Structures are given as structure tokens and as C-alpha cells.
């Protein structure tokens, strides 16, 4: 009985070792390609939000981690800094709207140092297809309505959907989603405006794997 059990255990272990060996080597083989793909998709998003940024790879390296869940939705968000001729032109912030209709909405927002929103994109979301997903730029151009809008603490009232007396359209049948996105973008812009020290914070993001 014991012999049978140990024989079976050994057979299982052997199969596990073979499987792990195959997967380990394949992982090694595909690792560089996967890292490259991830980098490319990050670069593509950065470039969409801030088309002027020619040296996107440099931009990706000049990045600092911030832990302000109240303003940016969750801890450990990345802030990229875009400099031209040693002058800081814009920040690119990862931010999260925690109050979407179904779960978090991850956004990337470009803000100039004085707090003007330059552009924004939805990176990932689980909103209702056909209603809430109009925040995606391939479904509608609603997300462009933030471009060039200044954000100051004084005009909090204007940073809301029309239904709440603000400047931004809601969608028919979906108010919660745009409301969440508007608030998240506003909070990100305000955060940049109120924290000029971001420009000199050390670049401490791990270079993406």
C-alpha cells in the first residue's frame, strides 16, 4: 500500500517537474517579446494623450510613483514628466475612477503644470457595452471634451456632467460612468496644480518589466 502510494507520488512529481521545465524555458524565450509588447502598448497610449511628445521612451523613464489614493483613486500610481529643453511641459498621470458603474476605470491624463488638462484616455474599464463604453475613444469622441479645459479649485461646479450643472455631456442611459470619469480627471488636474514639487521628485518607477 505504502509502496503504491509513494510510487504514485513519485510519478506525479516527475510529471510536475517535466511540466515546470517546459514552461520555465518557454517563459524565458517569450519574456523579451512580452516586455517589448507591453512597452509598445504603453508608448502608444502615452503618445495618444500627448501627441507632441516625440521622445516617448525618455518620457517613460522619467517617472515617479505617488501614493495619494484620495486624489488618484489608488496607491502607487505613476506620474510621467515630459520635459523639453529641460523645461517641464506636462505631466502624464495614471489615475483611477473608483466609482464607475461596474468597478474601477483606469485613465491616463495629461496635465500642464498650471493645471490645464491636455488630453485623457481610458486605459481599462468594465462599463456596460453600448452605454458606458462611450468613454472609449474608439466608440465616441466624448473623451476629447477634456482637452484644453483648465481646472482650478474655484470651478469645481463646472467640472461635472450637464445633469449636475456642469460642462460635460452625460450619455443617454448612463450618467454614473461619465460622472466618475469627470471627477477623476478633475482630481488629477487639481493634484498636479497643488503639488509643484512633483517636478523634482526622484524618478523611482521600476523600468517596466
Amino acid at each position, binding site marked *: 500500500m505504502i509502496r*503504491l502510494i509513494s*510510487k*504514485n507520488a513519485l*510519478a*506525479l512529481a516527475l*510529471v*510536475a517537474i517535466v*511540466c515546470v521545465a*517546459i*514552461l520555465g524555458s*518557454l*517563459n524565458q524565450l*517569450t519574456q523579451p*517579446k*512580452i516586455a517589448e*509588447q*507591453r512597452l*509598445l*502598448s504603453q508608448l502608444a497610449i502615452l503618445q495618444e494623450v500627448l501627441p507632441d511628445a516625440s521622445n516617448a521612451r525618455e518620457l517613460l523613464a522619467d517617472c515617479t510613483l505617488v501614493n495619494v489614493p484620495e486624489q488618484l483613486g489608488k496607491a502607487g500610481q505613476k506620474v510621467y514628466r515630459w520635459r523639453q529643453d529641460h523645461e517641464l511641459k506636462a505631466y502624464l498621470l495614471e489615475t483611477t475612477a473608483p466609482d464607475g458603474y461596474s468597478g474601477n476605470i483606469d485613465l491616463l491624463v495629461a496635465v500642464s503644470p498650471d493645471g490645464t488638462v491636455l488630453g485623457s484616455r481610458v486605459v481599462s474599464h468594465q462599463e*456596460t*457595452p*453600448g*452605454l458606458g463604453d462611450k468613454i472609449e475613444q474608439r466608440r465616441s469622441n466624448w473623451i476629447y471634451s477634456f482637452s484644453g479645459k483648465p481646472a482650478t479649485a474655484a470651478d469645481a461646479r463646472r467640472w461635472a456632467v450637464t445633469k449636475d450643472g456642469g460642462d460635460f455631456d452625460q450619455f443617454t442611459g448612463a450618467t454614473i460612468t461619465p460622472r466618475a470619469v469627470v471627477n477623476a480627471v478633475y482630481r488629477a488636474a487639481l493634484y498636479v496644480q497643488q503639488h509643484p514639487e512633483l517636478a523634482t521628485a526622484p524618478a523611482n518607477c521600476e523600468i517596466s518589466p
Partner: protein
Amino acid sequence: MSLMKELTLQGLWKNNPGLVQLLGLCPLLGVTNTLTNALGLGVATLLVLLGSNMVVSLVRAHVPNEIRIPIFVMIIASFVTVIQLLMNAYTFGLYQSLGIFLPLIVTNCAIIGRAEAFASKNPLLPSAIDGLMMGLGFLLVLVALGAMREILGQGTLFDGAELLLGDWAKILRIEVFHSDNHFLLAMLPPGAFIGMGLLIALKNSIDQRQARKQAVAKGSITRARVTGAAQ
């Protein structure tokens, strides 16, 4: 040759994993909101099924009966991880849009079902054919349901095909009709259930018609005439 024919018929129609065995419903209903997603997951499942059936068949003589299930699961999980790594490396966009359903192929009962029911009892070649045909059957159901839901839901076909096939595939996108408001029911999970039900009903009605025709051909229908005369 007749073996090949029989296995093909079983996989594609008589014992179709999607329509008859009703296995793997979770990915079937989850990712069929567009044709591209359905095709991507269908191909991934097909590859896993083919690979796992072949390996299970090769090692079937050496696997002790008591621990065959954990070993099969390990083989299948390895294949899924292989596919997942490859898709992550070469079709990144699709990898992201399939999301959790890719690792969930491991739990697709159709795969362990074929390993246990067929590949563990048959030599390499029939097992490979069985895996291929069962995978193809599953793929076809996914594609049919995906196309149905995409047309009804957003009026297009092959939306986002470039995620799967590269940039040239953008020309594949067909706009059947234009609508600003999507037909939500078709795109959400309830639409998948309804569509699936309709597909199964269609298959059953075709089968029944076939059976009736055969009955007529054999002449067994004469019994009906007897009851008719009694009235």
C-alpha cells in the same frame, strides 16, 4: 478512413462539445460578444485540445489509474500556459481583450472530458483527430454565436480583427448596418444564453427532420397508417 469520418461527424455534429455535450459554457457565453474574440478563444481551445489529447494518448500506458486525473490536469494546464505565453507575446491586443477567459480554458470540461473519455483509451492518431474535430466543433459554435451577437449587437462583423491577425485585418471589418445605439441584449450574457438556446434548437430540429426522413425511407411510417385507419 471510416474511423476518421466517424470522429469528424462526432466532433462537428453528433457529439458537438458546445451543442450536445454542453461543456465549456463559461467561455462559450463569456467571450462570444464579437466574432474576433470568439475566433481567438476557439483557436486557443482547439490547440489546447489537440495538444492535450495527443500527449495524454502518448503517456496513457504509463499513467497509473489512480492518479490519471491530476496528471491530465497538469498536462492541460501546461498547454494552456504555453498558449497564454505565446498569445501574450504575439497577439497582445487579443490577449488583453480575452482577459480571464484564456487561463480559464484549463477549467473547460470539454478538454478534460476528451482526455478522460477518448484519449486515455485510444492510440495517438485517433486521439489527435478526435481533439482536432472536437476543437473544431467547439470553434464553429463559438464563431456562429459570436457572429450572431456581433451583427445583432453592433451591426458589424470582424470588429477588432486586427487584434488577432495584425494590421492588415482592418479591411475585414464589415459594417452590416449602422447604428448609434447598440442592441444591448445581444451583447450582454443574457443574449448569449438566448442565442445558444436558439442554436441548440436549430440543431435539434435539423436532427429531427433527418430522423423523420430516414423513418419514411425505411418504411416504418406504415404503422401510422394503421392507427389512422382505426379512427
